[in-house]
């Protein structure tokens, strides 16, 4: 591993144990690098659910039907619940979660034309696509489907994490994220029957695709090599990205959003 030489003795010892199949149950007794990596994952997931949930709450006027508004309200609630459970796990490190939550502006979004790619621009750790505003119904359903798909792929990866409390929590989050993905997909299927809506979906697809793809993380990431070494993740960023791209290609071709 490229960065193993920079690790402390306790990090190396933990790394050796994990490579032999041991898991971690308590962050307080783990090594400093492991704690840093785990809290990075937990806060990225929790912050993304938090920003996503509050973004959806602000978008409740967009769904055309009452049933869809109710479903979106349920998703917003579930995302905040997932965030809460993940923050409670992060609290194991001693971080003051109430203060952390109060320190960030979760509803804040950039302008539509901003360019971020992999650049971090806020003190919170939300995935970058969550910095962009949702403007219309087609935007909302394309975004929901794409982001929930990324979240599902990442949660599947976390289900085998060496940090046991997180692998257990990720496996309980996965079916909920899958239901959010299903909401996006069924709304896309319904909307794609109308030619005018299909045009709007194509525009939204073009807007969100690269932004959500960037949420898979940069290829050949040194940090990801550490995640893999400590078995906090099982897949390279580029492998997650390839799986997501294949899924998007199939779904959006079936919906006639992308044409060969």
């Amino acid at each position, binding site marked *: 591993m490229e960065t193993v030489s920079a690790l402390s003795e306790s990090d190396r010892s933990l790394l050796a144990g994990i490579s032999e199949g041991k898991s971690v149950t308590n*962050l307080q007794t783990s090594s400093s690098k492991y*704690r840093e990596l785990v809290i990075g994952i937990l806060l990225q997931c929790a912050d993304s659910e938090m920003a996503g949930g509050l973004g959806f709450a602000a978008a409740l006027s967009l769904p055309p039907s009452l049933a869809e508004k109710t479903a979106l309200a349920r998703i917003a609630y579930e995302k905040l619940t997932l965030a809460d459970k993940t923050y409670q796990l992060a609290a194991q490190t001693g*971080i*003051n979660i109430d203060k*952390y939550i109060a320190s960030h502006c979760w509803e804040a979004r950039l302008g539509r034309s901003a360019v971020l790619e992999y650049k*971090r621009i806020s*003190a919170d750790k939300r995935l970058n696509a969550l910095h962009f505003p949702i403007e219309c119904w087609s935007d909302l359903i394309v975004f929901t489907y794409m982001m929930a798909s990324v979240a599902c792929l990442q949660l599947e990866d976390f289900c085998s994490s060496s940090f046991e409390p997180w692998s257990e929590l990720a496996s309980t989050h996965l079916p909920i994220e899958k239901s959010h993905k299903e909401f996006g997909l069924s709304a896309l299927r319904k909307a794609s029957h109308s030619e005018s809506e299909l045009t709007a979906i194509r525009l939204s697809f073009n807007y969100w695709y690269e932004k959500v793809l960037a949420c898979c993380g940069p290829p050949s990431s040194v940090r990801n090599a550490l995640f893999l070494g400590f078995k906090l993740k099982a897949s390279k960023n580029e492998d997650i990205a390839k799986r997501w791209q294949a899924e998007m290609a199939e779904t959006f071709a079936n919906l006639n959003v992308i044409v060969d």
Partner: protein
Amino acid sequence: MQQHVVDPEMCIQCSACEMACPLKAIACIAGRFCVDFEKCKGCAKCIEDCPTAACDCFIEVAQSYTQMEQAEWTVLPVFIDQSKGLEDEK
């Protein structure tokens, strides 16, 4: 004036800030990460690497806190000791 410090309520003692600082301005004292006011030039490398934004913390002070003083904090000083805070300037 502003002093760059590490928020003890946000810090998980991972040492990412200490490793990131090119000027060795951050040291771990009694389990707390403390910023040397004289050495820190505000390059923000520690802020970039801190996983919890504990390093993204600047407090208004009339007189800077030493690293030994920071090592005693469990919360930021505005809540526990205002002797060096702006309250004194009033």
